[in-house]
């Protein structure tokens, strides 16, 4: 498996450059090829579960060369990326026929996947930056893909803030290099433990939190997200909200905070504050929206708050020297919500795309009574809404339940109260969506509306099944032990990450 690690980057990258060569005549072939590539990546991601190890590119020792690292957290993210990109690609097969230049779209899509996959398996911080830029550049272009006024404007806004974030991150990385003389995460972590924190390293941490926070769209860095995510074509919205903000933002943030710097009380509180702000501000801005996709985008901000909250409570408990079991529970809640959100939010965006394609609008006031016309879309959308609002037995309920329990155990009762309250407001806003889209009277001009075609329904059905079944990830002990627990352990182990990497290196030396 470790030998196949570069395939996570190589497959999408090669596909991305082969697709435009096929040209206009090979559009069908290009679509099939892109779908095969995403499915292959999903299979690889499933195969990578439970494995761990390091791959040294070009056989250079990891102190000087580039390393790819596979551990529990990486496999979890790879799995989420695989699921969402497979579903989004299946959906695009039919949906993107509305646009011209489909092969360019497919190519950018694969580049984005390559960037995200590369980021989560990269073992040194400069490569994190490089892959982050690959994924970001592809996403800037995809947000503006329609080339209409609103889309270009959103793309420009996104690009300016994204470039600022990238500069912050690169500056932080340069400062870390200046202070530790290393770029490898394990070596950097080792050097920081040896020398202790100093002003330069603390400033670098602040720059990295701001940079990754911008990429993760945490309030107050959220301004670009509600414009950028709705403007993209629906499958791309699903990718952006589903996995891009998580792998570029939360994953990178968690790696830096837990595995490189080690947790501290101050950072824990900063993250909790960002998380609570995101949860509350995001959900209250979402309730008032009348544009379906914009409403979903604000909910993304709010749900990202949940993910960061779990991780931050874990960091706080660990930093205060509290019980590791409760810290694990909080982190488990955060990471489980990350995967759940990837599934149900991408499903909601695909459903909104299906409705937009069938009716030509996404304004809630102009829709209505579609329950009879689009039964499958309605059913999948209902499942996803129930999940995001935390209705049992869907997946969102389980992760929110864990988060509430963890917050109570950490002694943060008010945080638990806010969590429940935000969940209630989420439920209200999705009841509004159902009332205006699927119930009520069918407007005159929508009498001809028909259900979307086969592959779009297949991809939505796939995600809806996952929404129902993912509760099992938590309830069936063997699944929990193989998929979720290793990811949690990577974070609770914290600074032992560097020791683990040295051991892997030593073990590898013996085999050779």
């Amino acid at each position, binding site marked *: 498996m470790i030998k196949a690690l570069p395939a996570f980057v190589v497959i999408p990258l090669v596909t991305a450059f082969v697709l435009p060569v096929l040209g206009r005549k090979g559009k069908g072939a290009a679509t099939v090829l892109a779908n095969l590539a995403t499915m292959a990546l999903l299979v690889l991601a499933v195969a990578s579960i439970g494995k761990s190890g390091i791959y040294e590119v070009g056989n250079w020792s990891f102190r000087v060369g580039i390393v790819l690292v596979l551990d529990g957290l990486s496999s979890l993210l790879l799995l989420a990326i695989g699921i969402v990109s497979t579903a989004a690609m299946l959906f695009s097969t039919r949906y993107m026929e509305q646009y011209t230049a489909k092969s360019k779209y497919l190519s950018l899509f694969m580049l984005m996947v390559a960037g995200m996959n590369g980021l989560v398996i990269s073992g040194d911080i400069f490569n994190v930056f490089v892959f982050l830029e690959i994924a970001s550049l592809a996403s800037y272009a995809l947000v503006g893909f329609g080339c209409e*006024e609103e889309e270009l404007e959103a793309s*420009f806004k996104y690009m300016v803030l994204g470039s*600022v974030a990238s*500069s912050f991150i690169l500056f932080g990385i340069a400062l870390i290099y200046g202070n530790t003389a290393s*770029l490898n995460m394990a070596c950097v972590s080792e050097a920081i433990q040896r020398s202790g924190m100093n002003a330069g390293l603390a400033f670098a941490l602040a720059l990295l939190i701001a940079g990754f926070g911008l990429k993760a769209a945490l309030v107050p860095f959220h301004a670009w997200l*509600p414009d950028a995510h709705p403007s993209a074509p629906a499958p791309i919205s699903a990718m952006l909200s589903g996995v891009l903000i998580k792998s570029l933002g939360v994953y990178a943030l968690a790696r830096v905070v837990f595995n490189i710097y080690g947790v501290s009380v101050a950072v824990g509180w900063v993250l909790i504050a960002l998380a609570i702000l995101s949860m509350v501000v995001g959900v209250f801005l979402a309730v008032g929206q009348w*544009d379906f996709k914009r409403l979903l985008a604000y909910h993304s901000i709010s749900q990202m708050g949940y993910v960061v909250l779990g991780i931050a409570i874990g960091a706080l408990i660990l930093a205060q020297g509290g019980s590791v079991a409760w810290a694990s529970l909080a982190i488990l809640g955060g990471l489980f919500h990350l995967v759940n959100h990837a599934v149900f939010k991408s499903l909601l965006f695909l459903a909104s795309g299906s409705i937009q394609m069938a009716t030509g609008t996404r304004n809630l006031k102009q829709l209505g009574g579609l329950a009879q016309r689009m039964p499958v879309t309605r059913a999948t959308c209902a499942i996803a809404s129930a999940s995001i609002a935390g209705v049992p037995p869907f997946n969102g309920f389980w992760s929110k339940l864990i988060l509430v329990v963890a917050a109570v155990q950490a002694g943060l009762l008010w945080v638990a109260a806010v969590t429940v309250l935000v969940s209630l407001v989420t439920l209200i806003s999705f009841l509004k969506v159902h009332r205006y889209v699927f119930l009520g009277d069918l407007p005159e001009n929508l009498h001809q509306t028909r259900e979307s075609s086969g592959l779009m329904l297949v991809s939505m059905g796939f995600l809806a099944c996952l929404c129902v079944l993912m509760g099992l990830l938590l309830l069936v002990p063997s699944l929990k032990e193989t998929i979720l627990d290793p990811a949690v352990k990577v974070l609770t182990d914290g600074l032992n990450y560097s020791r683990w990497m040295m051991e892997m290196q030593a073990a590898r030396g013996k085999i050779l």
Partner: protein
Amino acid sequence: MLYALCFLLFMIGLYCAVVKKNMVKIVIGLAIMEYAVNLFLIMLGYRAGGAAPIIDRTYLEAGTDKVTASFINAAVDPLPQALVLTSIVISLGSLALIIAMCIRIYGKYGTFDITEIRRLKG
């Protein structure tokens, strides 16, 4: 001192990107930020009067393949230069994309003023 000036340049770029109303000036601000970071990286590896980090036979200790201590103390750090090359290429790509986007926006709206480009609200 030099590092502080470098940080000042970064802040000037950030100010320009955040405050200016003209799209082209915003792009220039972003470019200045990227240059400041590149400059900072280069300065990390710089050593006044240092030697190029290319190993010659004269720099090896006699009879071994280890470089001499005097070479290590004199040579500049080559890694930041490799990093800067990568980062310049990346910023070239992102600048080209953002300028292309500016041209398309100008074609649609007929202005570079971002206060007049406001279709998205909420």
